[in-house]
């Protein structure tokens, strides 16, 4: 059952991602991107990481994707010129893919396999965040603050 589900989700996610990169209409691309994000969330659920899956849905699908759509709607549409197909990009991407596939095929197994059947509760995650991971948590908060200030400064309209 699980491998069938895995295959289905993988195909869905990958095709949505390819569509997001290729579609000409920006809004269509943004919506395909959202589908790809849902697919990633489905992987998390499949792996038994319910909390991460939910966060993925809330943050990425709920907030980030909506933000992208709003940004597209609210900004000017640039000239939609066709720059032609980027062959060098395709060649590089295929080379990277080939190298990765070769490495994956040649590698026997991961050092740490996920323990099956162990579910981590939200409470445990919260406790870990406030004890062992409190320092990175604070620093991520600072990172977001810096990003917020920076984004605001850059879009602030100058009165001249």
């Amino acid at each position, binding site marked *: 059952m699980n491998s069938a589900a895995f295959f289905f989700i993988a195909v869905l996610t990958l095709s949505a991602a390819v569509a997001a990169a290729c579609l000409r209409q920006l809004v269509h691309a943004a919506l395909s991107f959202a589908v790809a994000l849902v697919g990633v969330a489905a992987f998390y659920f499949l792996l038994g990481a319910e909390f991460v899956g939910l966060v993925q849905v809330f943050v990425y699908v709920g907030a980030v994707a909506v933000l992208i759509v709003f940004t597209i709607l609210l900004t000017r549409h640039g000239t939609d010129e066709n720059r032609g197909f980027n062959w060098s990009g395709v060649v590089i991407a295929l080379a990277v893919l080939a190298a990765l596939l070769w490495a994956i095929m040649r590698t026997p197994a991961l050092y740490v396999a996920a323990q099956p059947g162990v579910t981590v509760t939200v409470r445990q995650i919260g406790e870990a965040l406030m004890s062992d991971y409190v320092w990175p948590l604070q620093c991520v908060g600072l990172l977001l603050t810096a990003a917020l200030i*920076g984004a605001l400064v850059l879009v602030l309209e100058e009165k001249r």
Partner: protein
Amino acid sequence: MSYLELLRLAAPEAIVVLTAFVVLTIGLVTGRREAGDTPAATAGLGALVAALGLAIAAATIVRLPGHATLFHGMLVVSPLNSLFQVIVLVLAFFTVILARGERLLPNKGEYLAMILLATVGLMLLIGSEELLMIFIGLELTGLSLYVMTAFDKASQTSAEAGLKYFLFGSMASAFTLFGLSLIYGFTGTTSLAAIGPRLAEQALPPLLFVGIVMTLIGFLFKIAAAPFHLWAPDAYQGAPVSTAGFIASGSKVASFIVLGKILLIGFGPVSGSADWHGLIAGWTPILAVLSALSILIGNLVALVQKNVRRLLAYSAVAHGGYTLLGLIAGGRAGFSATLFYTTIYAVTLVGAFGVVGFVRRENGGDDLADFAGLRARSPLLAGCMAIFLLSLAGLPPLAGFFGKFYLFSTALRAGANHGLLWLVALALFGSLISLYYYLIVLKVIFLDENAQATPAVARYDFEMRADYLPKMTLLVLAGAVLLLGIIPGTLVARILASFG
């Protein structure tokens, strides 16, 4: 561990963050008027507070306990980390002062706050020996620097530089994160100290090797090593001058120390060898090839540059290549040579960009032509620039000479049978090329006449109008470059002692 202890050990970072918010508030409360530019008084007060905060943070670092490790290496206090955190704070201090002399940007408060936040990112990078925190530090620094690069909204090149830097940077970060996740998958830990033994006990699977290479990409991007240097010329040229100086100095120092820790502590067992006769697979041969590429590309492309900032950018690529030599040589000696070289390079570049900032304010540009006859207009600036450039070229008795000597001799001694001789020879050849283009700049400064001859009044004007403080700073930096060349032992001994 209690929160109180965390607060005590993280006090320097906390102080810089608080300072950033105070500076931000000063800018918000007093700065907003109808006109675009920040009032001079606000900018002055902000810079004063920022400089004061950085000084207090540095004083706090000195008072920290000698050794402490929290959360499996997420926050590590050691003599080495403290020394380089202080160095980064000093570089940020100079950047703040030089930003003071810059044309008044709008939102000066926010600009200073971003400098401080970038500094916190650098301190996090230096002060952690754990992959998660290293990545957060990398991102905090990166985001702040992207914004600072695009800060001059009146200039199109600034926006373009910011966008390029951002796109390249986020791509490099994505690779690094992918690589870190692979490494975590194979070793089951994110602590550098624990990764080393895990790597030693298994044969290197190809996918893990891919992970290591991907991790390196992010740092090679930061130090602008050759195939990942494409952002550097635009960022160095388009960004506000103080930002360019900070990218070239503080960001580089922190990147090199973290790169060194990751390679020598974490990936030590899979280093391989780049010896001419005895190549062993690992990260060393990769770094050796990139170092050679950086030296060649950086120096050759710098030869044809007509803009001083672009020239400094390409020479930065080459200097990144030299600095990698120490890491390729490996061991304590190699690491300390790398750290010494990157430190003096950072000091030199802050100064060089300071001079560029003055010329830019006076002439409105920073092409070679704008430097023509600088000696006649301001002997002080011309003299400082000569010291900085000759140090970069590696002439004795300046700091750059000893740095290169230390670096190259360490690399030569590292391999059995002088295996790294090929790379050292290439680096020496590169230095020779670099001497040529640095001398071209100096020739323009000292010998060429300015197209529009400057009367004595203009010269007096130039000397007086320019801020006193930034000029004194440049003098201090030039003095430091000279002093570190004459008595380099003080800093080297300090670095070696801090390895403990």
